[in-house]
Protein backbone atom coordinates (compact mmCIF):
# COMPACT_ATOMS: atom_id res chain seq x y z
CA UNK A 1 0.00 0.00 0.00
CA UNK A 2 2.83 2.37 0.92
CA UNK A 3 4.52 1.56 -2.38
CA UNK A 4 1.28 2.47 -4.21
CA UNK A 5 0.95 5.77 -2.33
CA UNK A 6 4.59 6.68 -3.07
CA UNK A 7 4.39 5.71 -6.75
CA UNK A 8 1.23 7.79 -7.32
CA UNK A 9 2.20 10.77 -5.15
CA UNK A 10 2.70 12.81 -8.34
CA UNK A 11 -1.05 12.54 -9.01
CA UNK A 12 -1.77 14.69 -5.92
CA UNK A 13 -4.58 12.45 -4.68
CA UNK A 14 -6.91 14.11 -2.17
CA UNK A 15 -10.20 13.13 -0.51
CA UNK A 16 -12.35 15.17 -2.92
CA UNK A 17 -10.76 13.66 -6.04
CA UNK A 18 -10.90 10.15 -4.58
CA UNK A 19 -14.58 10.54 -3.68
CA UNK A 20 -15.45 11.99 -7.08
CA UNK A 21 -13.71 9.25 -9.06
CA UNK A 22 -14.98 6.48 -6.78
CA UNK A 23 -18.59 7.61 -7.29
CA UNK A 24 -18.00 8.07 -11.03
CA UNK A 25 -16.45 4.63 -11.60
CA UNK A 26 -18.96 2.86 -9.33
CA UNK A 27 -21.82 4.56 -11.19
CA UNK A 28 -20.40 3.62 -14.61
CA UNK A 29 -19.81 0.02 -13.48
CA UNK A 30 -23.29 -0.14 -11.95
CA UNK A 31 -24.93 1.25 -15.10
CA UNK A 32 -22.97 -1.21 -17.26
CA UNK A 33 -24.02 -4.21 -15.15
CA UNK A 34 -27.62 -2.92 -15.08
CA UNK A 35 -27.57 -2.53 -18.86
CA UNK A 36 -26.16 -6.04 -19.41
CA UNK A 37 -29.00 -7.62 -17.43
CA UNK A 38 -31.92 -5.29 -18.27
CA UNK A 39 -31.51 -3.45 -21.53
CA UNK A 40 -33.52 -0.23 -21.51
CA UNK A 41 -35.22 1.30 -24.52
CA UNK A 42 -34.90 5.01 -25.22
CA UNK A 43 -37.59 7.16 -23.64
CA UNK A 44 -38.81 10.69 -24.25
CA UNK A 45 -39.10 13.00 -21.25
CA UNK A 46 -38.74 16.77 -20.93
CA UNK A 47 -35.37 16.67 -22.72
CA UNK A 48 -35.58 17.50 -26.44
CA UNK A 49 -34.13 14.08 -27.36
CA UNK A 50 -35.07 10.48 -26.53
CA UNK A 51 -32.54 9.17 -24.00
CA UNK A 52 -31.32 5.97 -22.33
CA UNK A 53 -30.18 5.70 -18.70
CA UNK A 54 -26.58 6.21 -19.87
CA UNK A 55 -27.51 9.34 -21.83
CA UNK A 56 -29.30 10.81 -18.80
CA UNK A 57 -26.32 9.95 -16.59
CA UNK A 58 -23.97 11.74 -19.00
CA UNK A 59 -26.29 14.75 -19.34
CA UNK A 60 -26.58 14.74 -15.53
CA UNK A 61 -22.82 14.92 -15.03
CA UNK A 62 -22.35 17.57 -17.69
CA UNK A 63 -25.28 19.61 -16.35
CA UNK A 64 -24.00 19.32 -12.78
CA UNK A 65 -20.63 20.60 -13.85
CA UNK A 66 -22.25 23.43 -15.79
CA UNK A 67 -24.45 24.46 -12.84
CA UNK A 68 -21.43 24.42 -10.50
CA UNK A 69 -19.38 26.53 -12.92
CA UNK A 70 -22.24 29.03 -13.28
CA UNK A 71 -22.47 29.19 -9.47
CA UNK A 72 -18.72 29.78 -9.22
CA UNK A 73 -18.83 32.46 -11.94
CA UNK A 74 -21.68 34.47 -10.42
CA UNK A 75 -21.60 33.72 -6.70
CA UNK A 76 -18.05 32.52 -6.15
CA UNK A 77 -16.67 29.90 -3.82
CA UNK A 78 -19.32 30.48 -1.12
CA UNK A 79 -22.44 28.45 -0.36
CA UNK A 80 -21.31 25.45 -2.34
CA UNK A 81 -23.52 23.15 -0.21
CA UNK A 82 -26.50 25.00 -1.67
CA UNK A 83 -25.07 24.51 -5.15
CA UNK A 84 -24.70 20.80 -4.33
CA UNK A 85 -28.37 20.67 -3.29
CA UNK A 86 -29.42 22.34 -6.57
CA UNK A 87 -27.29 19.83 -8.49
CA UNK A 88 -28.82 16.91 -6.54
CA UNK A 89 -32.38 18.10 -7.29
CA UNK A 90 -31.48 18.58 -10.95
CA UNK A 91 -30.10 15.02 -11.17
CA UNK A 92 -33.13 13.46 -9.48
CA UNK A 93 -35.54 15.33 -11.80
CA UNK A 94 -33.42 14.35 -14.80
CA UNK A 95 -33.31 10.68 -13.80
CA UNK A 96 -37.08 10.50 -13.22
CA UNK A 97 -38.52 12.83 -15.87
CA UNK A 98 -35.70 13.41 -18.39
Amino acid at each position, binding site marked *: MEWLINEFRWMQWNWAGTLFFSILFLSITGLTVWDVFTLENRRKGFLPI*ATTRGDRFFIGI*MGSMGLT*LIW*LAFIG*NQGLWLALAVVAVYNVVLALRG
Partner: protein
Amino acid sequence: MRQRPWLFLLPTLVLMSISAFIPLMAVINYSLHTIFAGSTPEFVGLQNYADVMGDAQFRGALLRQLTFSLLALLIEIPLGVGIALCMPRKGGAVGLSLVLLGIPLLIPYNVVGIVWRLFTQSDIGVIPRFLAVFGYDYNVSLDATDAFMTILLVDVWHWTPLVVLLAYAGLQAIPQTFYQAAEVDGASAWKTFRYVTLPKLRSVLTLGLLIRFMDSFKVYSEPLLLTGGGPGNATTFMSLFVARKAEAYELGYAGASSIIYLYVVIVMSYILFQFINRSPEERRA
Protein backbone atom coordinates in the same frame (compact mmCIF):
# COMPACT_ATOMS: atom_id res chain seq x y z
CA MET B 1 -20.44 -16.86 -23.14
CA ARG B 2 -22.69 -13.74 -23.18
CA GLN B 3 -20.12 -11.32 -21.80
CA ARG B 4 -17.35 -12.32 -24.23
CA PRO B 5 -17.34 -8.86 -25.96
CA TRP B 6 -16.12 -7.36 -22.67
CA LEU B 7 -13.05 -9.61 -22.76
CA PHE B 8 -12.25 -8.35 -26.25
CA LEU B 9 -12.72 -4.78 -25.07
CA LEU B 10 -10.44 -5.25 -22.06
CA PRO B 11 -7.07 -4.48 -23.79
CA THR B 12 -8.52 -1.25 -25.22
CA LEU B 13 -9.95 -0.26 -21.87
CA VAL B 14 -6.62 -0.89 -20.11
CA LEU B 15 -4.75 1.08 -22.77
CA MET B 16 -7.23 3.96 -22.56
CA SER B 17 -6.97 3.95 -18.77
CA ILE B 18 -3.25 4.49 -19.01
CA SER B 19 -3.24 6.96 -21.89
CA ALA B 20 -6.35 9.04 -21.12
CA PHE B 21 -7.99 8.44 -17.76
CA ILE B 22 -4.88 8.57 -15.53
CA PRO B 23 -3.66 11.93 -16.95
CA LEU B 24 -7.24 13.26 -16.72
CA MET B 25 -7.47 12.14 -13.09
CA ALA B 26 -4.13 13.80 -12.36
CA VAL B 27 -5.27 17.07 -13.96
CA ILE B 28 -8.51 17.06 -11.94
CA ASN B 29 -6.52 16.41 -8.75
CA TYR B 30 -4.07 19.20 -9.64
CA SER B 31 -6.96 21.59 -10.28
CA LEU B 32 -7.98 21.25 -6.62
CA HIS B 33 -4.57 22.40 -5.35
CA THR B 34 -2.47 25.52 -5.35
CA ILE B 35 0.89 24.36 -6.64
CA PHE B 36 3.93 26.59 -6.97
CA ALA B 37 7.50 25.50 -7.67
CA GLY B 38 9.34 24.37 -4.57
CA SER B 39 6.37 24.59 -2.20
CA THR B 40 4.10 21.90 -0.78
CA PRO B 41 0.80 21.68 -2.72
CA GLU B 42 -2.12 23.07 -0.76
CA PHE B 43 -5.65 21.69 -1.17
CA VAL B 44 -8.00 24.58 -2.04
CA GLY B 45 -11.18 22.83 -3.22
CA LEU B 46 -12.92 24.64 -6.08
CA GLN B 47 -11.08 27.95 -5.54
CA ASN B 48 -9.08 27.57 -8.79
CA TYR B 49 -12.34 27.06 -10.71
CA ALA B 50 -13.82 30.19 -9.10
CA ASP B 51 -10.66 32.12 -10.04
CA VAL B 52 -10.77 30.86 -13.63
CA MET B 53 -14.48 31.68 -14.04
CA GLY B 54 -13.87 35.19 -12.72
CA ASP B 55 -10.81 35.81 -14.92
CA ALA B 56 -11.51 38.22 -17.79
CA GLN B 57 -8.49 36.85 -19.71
CA PHE B 58 -9.91 33.33 -19.58
CA ARG B 59 -13.35 34.49 -20.70
CA GLY B 60 -11.70 36.45 -23.52
CA ALA B 61 -9.72 33.39 -24.66
CA LEU B 62 -12.86 31.23 -24.53
CA LEU B 63 -14.94 33.72 -26.54
CA ARG B 64 -12.11 34.09 -29.06
CA GLN B 65 -11.87 30.33 -29.33
CA LEU B 66 -15.61 29.88 -29.88
CA THR B 67 -15.61 32.61 -32.56
CA PHE B 68 -12.61 31.00 -34.24
CA SER B 69 -14.12 27.49 -34.19
CA LEU B 70 -17.50 28.69 -35.45
CA LEU B 71 -15.93 30.67 -38.32
CA ALA B 72 -13.61 27.76 -39.19
CA LEU B 73 -16.58 25.37 -39.42
CA LEU B 74 -18.73 27.84 -41.37
CA ILE B 75 -15.97 28.19 -43.96
CA GLU B 76 -14.41 24.72 -44.06
CA ILE B 77 -17.52 22.52 -44.27
CA PRO B 78 -19.31 24.25 -47.21
CA LEU B 79 -15.98 24.87 -48.97
CA GLY B 80 -14.95 21.23 -48.49
CA VAL B 81 -18.25 19.92 -49.84
CA GLY B 82 -18.10 22.40 -52.73
CA ILE B 83 -14.59 21.30 -53.73
CA ALA B 84 -15.54 17.62 -53.39
CA LEU B 85 -18.52 18.19 -55.73
CA CYS B 86 -16.21 19.81 -58.30
CA MET B 87 -13.63 17.03 -58.19
CA PRO B 88 -13.40 14.50 -61.03
CA ARG B 89 -15.14 11.18 -60.27
CA LYS B 90 -13.06 8.95 -62.57
CA GLY B 91 -9.88 8.92 -64.66
CA GLY B 92 -6.27 9.82 -63.94
CA ALA B 93 -7.19 13.26 -62.58
CA VAL B 94 -8.73 11.62 -59.49
CA GLY B 95 -5.36 10.41 -58.13
CA LEU B 96 -3.67 13.71 -58.91
CA SER B 97 -6.34 15.81 -57.16
CA LEU B 98 -6.33 13.54 -54.12
CA VAL B 99 -2.55 13.80 -53.81
CA LEU B 100 -2.64 17.60 -54.21
CA LEU B 101 -5.37 17.87 -51.58
CA GLY B 102 -3.50 15.60 -49.21
CA ILE B 103 -0.32 17.71 -49.20
CA PRO B 104 -1.44 20.33 -46.61
CA LEU B 105 -2.56 17.50 -44.32
CA LEU B 106 0.91 15.93 -44.44
CA ILE B 107 2.75 19.08 -43.35
CA PRO B 108 3.47 19.13 -39.61
CA TYR B 109 1.89 21.92 -37.55
CA ASN B 110 5.24 23.56 -36.75
CA VAL B 111 6.25 23.69 -40.40
CA VAL B 112 2.87 25.21 -41.29
CA GLY B 113 3.44 27.91 -38.66
CA ILE B 114 6.93 28.73 -39.89
CA VAL B 115 5.95 28.73 -43.60
CA TRP B 116 3.01 31.07 -42.93
CA ARG B 117 5.20 33.27 -40.77
CA LEU B 118 7.41 33.79 -43.82
CA PHE B 119 4.33 34.43 -45.97
CA THR B 120 3.01 37.08 -43.57
CA GLN B 121 6.28 38.80 -42.57
CA SER B 122 5.59 42.51 -43.06
CA ASP B 123 8.89 43.23 -44.91
CA ILE B 124 9.42 40.14 -47.08
CA GLY B 125 6.11 38.22 -46.95
CA VAL B 126 4.10 37.53 -50.06
CA ILE B 127 0.72 38.31 -48.43
CA PRO B 128 1.55 41.90 -47.29
CA ARG B 129 3.06 42.59 -50.71
CA PHE B 130 0.04 41.19 -52.53
CA LEU B 131 -2.44 43.14 -50.39
CA ALA B 132 -0.37 46.32 -50.75
CA VAL B 133 -1.23 46.20 -54.46
CA PHE B 134 -4.88 46.83 -53.44
CA GLY B 135 -3.84 49.56 -51.01
CA TYR B 136 -4.39 47.44 -47.87
CA ASP B 137 -1.80 47.91 -45.14
CA TYR B 138 -1.56 44.37 -43.78
CA ASN B 139 0.43 43.85 -40.60
CA VAL B 140 0.05 40.65 -38.67
CA SER B 141 2.11 41.78 -35.70
CA LEU B 142 0.30 45.12 -35.16
CA ASP B 143 -3.29 44.64 -36.33
CA ALA B 144 -5.50 42.33 -34.20
CA THR B 145 -8.00 41.65 -37.02
CA ASP B 146 -5.21 40.83 -39.48
CA ALA B 147 -3.67 38.42 -36.99
CA PHE B 148 -6.96 36.67 -36.19
CA MET B 149 -7.98 36.38 -39.85
CA THR B 150 -4.53 35.06 -40.78
CA ILE B 151 -4.76 32.25 -38.20
CA LEU B 152 -8.23 31.47 -39.56
CA LEU B 153 -6.89 31.44 -43.12
CA VAL B 154 -4.07 29.09 -42.11
CA ASP B 155 -6.56 26.74 -40.45
CA VAL B 156 -8.82 26.79 -43.52
CA TRP B 157 -5.85 26.10 -45.79
CA HIS B 158 -4.52 23.32 -43.57
CA TRP B 159 -7.76 21.47 -42.77
CA THR B 160 -10.31 22.01 -45.57
CA PRO B 161 -8.66 19.15 -47.52
CA LEU B 162 -9.71 16.78 -44.73
CA VAL B 163 -13.35 17.79 -45.21
CA VAL B 164 -12.90 17.45 -48.98
CA LEU B 165 -11.52 13.92 -48.65
CA LEU B 166 -14.33 12.87 -46.31
CA ALA B 167 -17.03 14.45 -48.49
CA TYR B 168 -15.46 12.95 -51.62
CA ALA B 169 -15.50 9.46 -50.07
CA GLY B 170 -19.15 10.04 -49.11
CA LEU B 171 -20.05 11.19 -52.62
CA GLN B 172 -18.40 8.16 -54.21
CA ALA B 173 -20.49 5.89 -51.97
CA ILE B 174 -23.86 7.31 -53.18
CA PRO B 175 -25.37 4.87 -55.72
CA GLN B 176 -26.04 6.38 -59.15
CA THR B 177 -29.61 5.05 -59.07
CA PHE B 178 -30.62 7.89 -56.70
CA TYR B 179 -29.44 10.48 -59.20
CA GLN B 180 -31.14 8.63 -62.06
CA ALA B 181 -34.43 8.63 -60.11
CA ALA B 182 -34.07 12.36 -59.39
CA GLU B 183 -33.43 12.99 -63.09
CA VAL B 184 -36.52 10.99 -64.09
CA ASP B 185 -38.56 13.06 -61.60
CA GLY B 186 -37.23 16.22 -63.23
CA ALA B 187 -35.45 17.49 -60.12
CA SER B 188 -33.26 20.59 -60.56
CA ALA B 189 -29.55 20.48 -59.72
CA TRP B 190 -30.21 22.29 -56.41
CA LYS B 191 -33.06 19.95 -55.43
CA THR B 192 -30.94 16.90 -56.28
CA PHE B 193 -28.20 18.28 -54.04
CA ARG B 194 -30.62 19.25 -51.25
CA TYR B 195 -32.73 16.07 -51.18
CA VAL B 196 -30.32 13.38 -52.47
CA THR B 197 -26.68 14.34 -51.97
CA LEU B 198 -26.86 16.18 -48.62
CA PRO B 199 -28.93 13.54 -46.75
CA LYS B 200 -26.62 10.81 -48.04
CA LEU B 201 -23.59 12.79 -46.87
CA ARG B 202 -25.05 13.28 -43.39
CA SER B 203 -22.96 10.67 -41.52
CA VAL B 204 -19.73 11.65 -43.28
CA LEU B 205 -20.37 15.35 -42.66
CA THR B 206 -21.21 14.69 -39.01
CA LEU B 207 -17.84 13.00 -38.65
CA GLY B 208 -16.08 15.85 -40.48
CA LEU B 209 -17.89 18.49 -38.45
CA LEU B 210 -17.05 16.87 -35.12
CA ILE B 211 -13.42 16.19 -36.02
CA ARG B 212 -12.95 19.74 -37.24
CA PHE B 213 -14.78 21.26 -34.28
CA MET B 214 -12.68 19.37 -31.74
CA ASP B 215 -9.49 19.96 -33.73
CA SER B 216 -10.13 23.69 -34.10
CA PHE B 217 -10.26 23.89 -30.32
CA LYS B 218 -6.72 22.51 -30.22
CA VAL B 219 -5.18 25.21 -32.42
CA TYR B 220 -1.82 25.93 -30.79
CA SER B 221 1.32 25.80 -32.98
CA GLU B 222 0.03 28.18 -35.62
CA PRO B 223 -0.73 31.15 -33.31
CA LEU B 224 2.36 30.38 -31.23
CA LEU B 225 4.71 30.51 -34.23
CA LEU B 226 2.88 33.10 -36.30
CA THR B 227 1.79 35.74 -33.82
CA GLY B 228 2.89 34.49 -30.39
CA GLY B 229 -0.74 34.96 -29.27
CA GLY B 230 -0.70 38.66 -30.10
CA PRO B 231 -0.97 41.48 -30.85
CA GLY B 232 -2.17 41.90 -27.27
CA ASN B 233 -4.26 38.78 -26.74
CA ALA B 234 -5.89 38.81 -30.18
CA THR B 235 -4.78 35.26 -31.06
CA THR B 236 -4.43 33.78 -27.58
CA PHE B 237 -6.77 30.84 -27.96
CA MET B 238 -7.65 28.37 -25.23
CA SER B 239 -4.74 25.95 -25.68
CA LEU B 240 -2.23 28.80 -25.73
CA PHE B 241 -3.82 30.35 -22.64
CA VAL B 242 -3.67 27.06 -20.70
CA ALA B 243 -0.11 26.34 -21.87
CA ARG B 244 1.07 29.77 -20.72
CA LYS B 245 -0.43 29.25 -17.27
CA ALA B 246 1.28 25.84 -17.04
CA GLU B 247 4.58 27.36 -18.23
CA ALA B 248 4.25 29.96 -15.45
CA TYR B 249 3.97 26.92 -13.12
CA GLU B 250 0.46 27.87 -11.99
CA LEU B 251 -0.43 24.20 -12.22
CA GLY B 252 -3.64 24.33 -10.18
CA TYR B 253 -5.01 27.22 -12.22
CA ALA B 254 -3.85 25.61 -15.50
CA GLY B 255 -5.51 22.33 -14.43
CA ALA B 256 -8.82 24.05 -13.64
CA SER B 257 -8.82 26.02 -16.91
CA SER B 258 -8.00 22.89 -18.94
CA ILE B 259 -10.87 20.96 -17.29
CA ILE B 260 -13.29 23.80 -18.16
CA TYR B 261 -11.80 23.86 -21.67
CA LEU B 262 -12.38 20.10 -22.00
CA TYR B 263 -15.90 20.52 -20.62
CA VAL B 264 -16.80 23.12 -23.26
CA VAL B 265 -15.48 20.87 -26.05
CA ILE B 266 -17.42 17.82 -24.79
CA VAL B 267 -20.70 19.69 -24.26
CA MET B 268 -20.58 21.53 -27.58
CA SER B 269 -19.61 18.36 -29.49
CA TYR B 270 -22.47 16.47 -27.83
CA ILE B 271 -25.01 19.19 -28.67
CA LEU B 272 -23.69 19.38 -32.25
CA PHE B 273 -23.87 15.59 -32.61
CA GLN B 274 -27.41 15.40 -31.22
CA PHE B 275 -28.54 18.31 -33.38
CA ILE B 276 -27.25 16.74 -36.59
CA ASN B 277 -28.46 13.24 -35.75
CA ARG B 278 -32.01 14.17 -34.78
CA SER B 279 -34.57 11.72 -36.14
CA PRO B 280 -37.07 13.11 -38.73
CA GLU B 281 -39.78 13.16 -35.99
CA GLU B 282 -37.52 15.17 -33.65
CA ARG B 283 -36.74 17.61 -36.45
CA ARG B 284 -40.44 18.16 -37.16
CA ALA B 285 -41.24 18.73 -33.46
